[in-house]
């Protein structure tokens, strides 16, 4: 793609009306800088690929085969700032870290302009030393990340060899039951209680609360309790009713759950916290 093509792609208005599409340090630009090392139209894609200012700097250095230990700081700073400006112009939301790095580069540049004392005993540290150390440190972990990515990975490069095992784990599937089934089950209990109706029943005040505690007590001893086993038909209709109310109350409070092994099978009670998938 030629330079003019890029201009057309990015700044059609600039071409038409000669309006500056960028103002860098107060200087209007009517065309893209020509000394960029990456074609500007590749910028959008490339920016996504940078993992931060260090990554961008490393890219600029490596791209030009520069020695990381002897970075031409002025040149690199210039290129770096040009990218930052462009990103800004293209309305990229710049992470603050990029700006911090720009400031750091500018600081190094200015420190390098200062005259240094040529004292053999006390050599002043190269202003670039810290940056070089950080770049190298980052680069080795960038490499380490690629190395880790290259390791044979489970479910990408290798798979667990498995054979089909019948009855591997007896997993009991609980079936959700609805209120109809519950009422039907209760009807059966009632029918059985009806058989005892002729018996004289000593009236006893049966409290629903008491019965709730009793049900929970049973559940403490056994993980699951058969629905029918909670009723004592000898108590007659009223006793059975109290038990049923207690169960309903507990259900309402989400303290217990009702489950079934299979459709039309026995209904079981279990505590809500119990693992419903069974074990």
């Amino acid at each position, binding site marked *: 793609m030629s330079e003019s093509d890029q201009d057309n792609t990015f700044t059609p208005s600039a071409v038409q009306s000669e309006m500056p599409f960028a103002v860098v340090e107060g200087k209007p630009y009517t065309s893209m800088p020509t000394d960029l090392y990456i074609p500007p139209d590749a910028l959008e894609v490339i920016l996504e*690929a940078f*993992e*931060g*200012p*260090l*990554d961008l700097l490393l890219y600029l250095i490596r791209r030009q085969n520069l*020695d*990381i*230990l*002897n970075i*031409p700081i*002025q040149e690199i700073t210039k290129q770096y700032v040009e990218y930052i400006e462009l990103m800004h112009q293209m309305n990229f939301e710049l*992470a603050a*870290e990029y700006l911090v*790095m720009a400031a750091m580069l500018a600081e190094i540049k200015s420190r*390098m302009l200062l005259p*240094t004392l040529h004292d053999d005993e006390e*050599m002043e*540290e*190269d202003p*670039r*030393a810290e940056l*070089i*150390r*950080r770049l*190298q*440190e*980052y*680069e*080795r*972990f*960038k*490499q*380490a*990340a*690629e*190395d*880790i*990515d*290259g*390791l*044979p*990975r*489970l*479910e*990408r*490069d*290798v*798979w*667990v*060899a*498995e*054979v089909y*095992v019948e009855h*591997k784990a007896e997993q009991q599937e609980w079936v959700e039951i609805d209120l109809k089934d519950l009422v039907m089950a209760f009807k059966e209990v009632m029918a059985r209680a009806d058989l005892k109706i002729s018996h004289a029943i000593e009236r006893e005040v049966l409290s629903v609360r008491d019965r709730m505690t009793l049900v929970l007590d049973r559940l403490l001893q056994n993980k699951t309790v058969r629905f029918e086993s909670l009723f004592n038909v000898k108590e007659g209709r009223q006793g059975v009713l109290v038990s049923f109310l207690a169960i309903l109350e507990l259900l309402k409070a989400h303290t217990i759950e009702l489950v079934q092994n299979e459709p039309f099978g026995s209904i079981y009670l279990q505590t809500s916290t119990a693992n419903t998938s069974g074990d």
Partner: protein
Amino acid sequence: MELKQIKNIVEAALMASDEPLQNKQLLDLFPDEELTGNDINQVLNELEQEYQDRGIELKRLAKGYRLQTRESVQPWLQHLWDKKPRKLSRALLETLALIAYRQPITRGEIEDIRGVAVSSKIIHHMMDQEWIRVLGYRDVPGKPAMLGTTNTFLDYFNLSSLRDLPSLAAIKDMETLEPELAFESNDPSPIDAEQATDDDHEVRAAQTERHEPSDELPDPENESTENAS
């Protein structure tokens, strides 16, 4: 019981389990036999030999032994599945690499080296995968969590211990080079030129840095107890 039968049972157990099995777990399969861990090792060694030229292999990992498909057959296996395996982002891999090589490490230290903020999403994802865990909290203001890798991480990346991680690249020594750095000089000094020709691979192979990961890392043997239960 004959060794042959023990071998068959061990092989079947490894096949039936979706998690790696330890020597002890395999030994527990034979409560009525007078076997020792050495017998299991012998059986495992034989199995390893037998799988030598096969499409699956017996691999020793952090959490035990696993029968798995060979990496070399993956290009063909790939046709079994529609979806391409998910790639890990560079941000995740770099963060993971720092945690693996520099554990225990805090988020702040990761940010210092990478030069960008650590994404919480990435940390949470790796926690969910159980690749990383909190090893403790540093006793400084803010009590930052110190992160480290898990045995699940090692197993996932086909490693038996942290020592198996690829060695870290060497850092070129600034101390010795510094006097040679000529400010604003365009002619590289002799040492600079020599450094410039240094191929990355040569640097990586440098003997001085070869054992660095294992030196910096905690003894993986101590860690194996963590997932034993």
